[in-house]
């Protein structure tokens, strides 16, 4: 009897999804839908938080005050995006403390791109232009995700991200127009970040174990390969415009399809980084753990102050 009920509820749930009716926190949903969303939203939140680290590395060394103010604002936005997303995960019953502990224990994943080091100032340009560009490409379809709180968080995030990409492109453009050394620095950053940026869209559709179900539930609205192709198509002309060369000998425009064809992604490298063996995985997690431990006194002080203020009010 109970089996029948669940099946019937799942059927009604899928009907709602098919009619583009949003699912809200207190609505009935299948356990797998809830778990898939908690996994995806918390990974997304972790990516925003860990994503602050490669850029935070350059705040004190920004070349001038304008660049420094812009970079600070961008990194602050990433923190905000992490907070919107942790809250969205909480609406599904995820415990915030546990979610963060899962990141620190290595149980939870985050975007592999943030495990690459930022060696020069030009990397701030490459990250804004390519990494934020790829993130926008990924996030725009999630604004139409079936789960209301996630979709609404994405609308806010996408609005804010567009400045991130522009400021990155501006850095690259300025360096590309600069001295030969500056242009070489921009080219080097592009060489290092191009392939990891393409990996951000995740494994090929054939290899992606969650895609089919997530598309059916409208958690995901486009496949990894579709988004990756879209990204290549818009980015190649941008690189050409500023006189930089993409590090891909196989890259060519196919007039018949109207799309760029590109070389094979090094999936072995992708999986190594996902498994924790990228150049900075250990450093990123150590930094997050340390931030939590060393910030403990601040959280305790805030709690103590709140108690003191409450006592004063009731006195």
């Amino acid at each position: 009897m109970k089996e029948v009920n669940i099946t019937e509820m799942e059927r009604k749930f899928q009907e709602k999804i098919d009619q583009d009716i949003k699912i809200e926190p207190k609505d009935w949903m299948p356990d797998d839908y809830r778990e898939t969303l908690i996994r995806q939203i918390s990974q997304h939140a972790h990516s925003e938080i860990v994503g602050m680290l490669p850029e935070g590395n350059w705040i004190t060394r920004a070349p001038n005050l304008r660049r420094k103010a812009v970079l600070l604002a961008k990194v602050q936005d990433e923190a905000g995006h992490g907070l919107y997303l942790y809250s969205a995960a909480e609406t599904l019953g995820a415990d915030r403390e546990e979610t963060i502990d899962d990141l620190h224990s290595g149980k939870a994943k985050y975007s592999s791109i943030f495990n690459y080091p930022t060696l020069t100032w030009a990397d701030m340009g490459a990250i804004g232009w390519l990494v934020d560009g790829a993130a926008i490409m990924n996030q725009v379809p999630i604004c139409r995700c079936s789960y209301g709180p996630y979709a609404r968080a994405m609308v806010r995030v996408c609005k804010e991200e567009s400045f991130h990409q522009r400021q990155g492109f501006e850095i690259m453009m300025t360096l590309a127009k600069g001295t030969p050394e500056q242009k070489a620095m921009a080219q080097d950053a592009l060489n290092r970040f191009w392939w990891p940026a393409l990996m951000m869209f995740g494994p090929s559709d054939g290899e992606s174990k969650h895609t089919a179900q997530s598309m059916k539930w409208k958690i995901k609205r486009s496949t990894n390969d579709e988004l990756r192709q879209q990204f290549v198509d818009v980015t190649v002309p941008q690189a050409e415009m500023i006189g930089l060369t993409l590090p891909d000998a196989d890259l060519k425009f196919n007039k018949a399809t109207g799309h760029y064809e590109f070389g094979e992604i090094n999936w072995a490298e992708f999986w190594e980084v996902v498994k924790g063996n990228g150049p900075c995985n250990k450093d990123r997690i150590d930094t997050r753990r340390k931030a939590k431990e060393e910030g403990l006194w601040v959280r305790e002080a805030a709690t103590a102050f709140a108690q003191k203020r409450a006592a004063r009010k009731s006195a």
Partner: protein
Amino acid sequence: MSNKEWPLWEVFIRGKQGLNHKHVGSLRAADAEMALENARDVYTRRSEGISIWVVESNNVFASDPSESQEFFEPADSKIYRHPTFYDVPDGISHM
């Protein structure tokens, strides 16, 4: 209050004078004053508001979505509350 987890607060923002406060999301903070400051930093970095309300989530009493059909039935059955229920002959204007 536990040291482990601060309470959850729902955040409402008035975008500009003349508009109502609208729910924008939630956050954690140790007390109401800190929730307000956090809400300012998290939800109004681009001048999205001129006024913020924060309400501890525990204090929100909400209708139950699984009972929404019965709960809202009284309105659904009274279609004569809508102007389109009535026939107005051609030639009648300002109505």
